[in-house]
């Protein structure tokens, strides 16, 4: 594997994205709207929000991410430029890794935008340390991006791919989604310190397993 080639692909995608702003604009707008909808749906000043809030925050990323992150592959497929990448001597691993890095940059931007917005809209007082919360969230997003990017590479040739992606990726993402919600709740509502949250290790283990498999299987996914 040649990490320079993967980074070249990520750099190229970021440059294209910051000139067209096609995806990021959509992601930010969509997460803003979703947060607003969640806010409308929740009873104001309800004590239950302390428990439910972390889950709502997390689902903003899942909803926006599911729609936005698959664009990285689907766009290249639609424009035919993916074949240009595959003609070059780069393996599937480099292409997938490039897209993971690019998607991670996008979702971190969404995080930067959505977390303060969430706190302001819901008037949420985080019980634990803010840094711990950001770390837990970022780790969850890393897992989400690794699995989501790889699955979107698998489904990009399918009919009705945006729908197929949801159906295939969601169950594979549950070992990231469930522990992250629990861990977020423990930091944000219970104020537990990061070291005492076992769920984080579960996410980490899943990321390692899925990254290894993606590494081994990427060439099979992107071979034609």
């Amino acid at each position, binding site marked *: 594997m040649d990490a320079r080639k993967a980074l070249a692909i990520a750099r190229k995608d970021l440059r294209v994205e910051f000139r067209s702003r096609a995806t990021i604009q959509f992601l930010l707008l969509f997460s803003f709207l979703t947060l607003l909808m969640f806010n409308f749906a929740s009873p104001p000043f309800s004590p239950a929000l302390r428990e439910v809030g972390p889950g709502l925050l997390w689902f903003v990323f899942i909803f926006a991410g599911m729609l936005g992150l698959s664009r990285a592959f689907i766009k290249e497929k639609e424009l035919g430029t993916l074949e240009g990448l595959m003609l070059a001597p780069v393996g599937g691993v480099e292409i997938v890794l490039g897209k993971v890095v690019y998607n991670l940059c996008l979702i971190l931007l969404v995080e930067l935008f959505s977390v303060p917005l969430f706190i302001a809209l819901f008037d949420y007082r985080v019980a634990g340390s803010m840094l711990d919360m950001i770390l837990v969230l970022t780790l969850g997003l890393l897992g989400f991006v690794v699995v989501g990017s790889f699955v979107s590479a698998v489904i990009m040739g*399918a009919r009705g791919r945006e729908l197929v992606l949801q159906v295939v990726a969601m169950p594979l993402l549950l070992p990231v989604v469930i522990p992250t919600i629990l861990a977020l709740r423990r930091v944000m509502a219970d104020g537990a310190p990061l070291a005492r949250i076992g769920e984080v290790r579960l996410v980490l283990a899943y990321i390692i397993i899925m990254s290894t498999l993606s590494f081994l299987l990427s060439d099979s*996914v992107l071979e034609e």
Partner: protein
Amino acid sequence: MPSRSYTVAFLAGLYLWVMAAMYRALSLGPLDPALLRYVGDPMRQGYKIFFFAMQNAPVVYIAFLATLVGSVMYLKTREMRWDIIASSSAKLALLFCTLVLVSGAIFSNLAWGAYWNWDPRQTTTLILWFILAGYLSLRSALEDEEARARLSAVIGILGFAGVPLTHISATIWVSNHPQLYDKAAGAGFSLDAQGASAFGMMLLGAIFLYIYLLWVTVRIETLERVQEA
């Protein structure tokens, strides 16, 4: 290729075997009264539905394992017969998974008065059902035979590898949930010798049924593809 008469003999044998297993299960005595206080009264005799439900759960894992083996072998050899095995077994895994969910829900309703109560095993089975359904939807959305085989093999491998952590996630999630029903009965539920042998016989019958169905599905799929080509 086994001839027709072998098939008939096999099916007759399987039928008799399952009948014997069912007889053994139904002739068990009523539930131990010590356990009955944890569950509803219908379970006095109704607990025997366990023998008609839970023997399917291991079959789901066996069938999914066969999908994994077929997927890995397809990517290694690129021979379509492995893809046929993988996809046929996934269909059966989904079938047995559905059986487990439905019969599990009936069992759960008799025991605790609710069809669904977020038991870790029940939850894992449900997630497994979604993984298998996703695998099969992906297959139906891919037109090219080669791409379908290759890409669904990747998802088959990913899905199977995720099962242990899926189970752990389901378990911690459930343990974070306040339980509506006392599960001590489940923990204290153990089989006596006759019960264990009845369960073993039912399980063996289910495994052989799976093997037979796999053989039939693979045959049909192979013939269909020969016709297409």
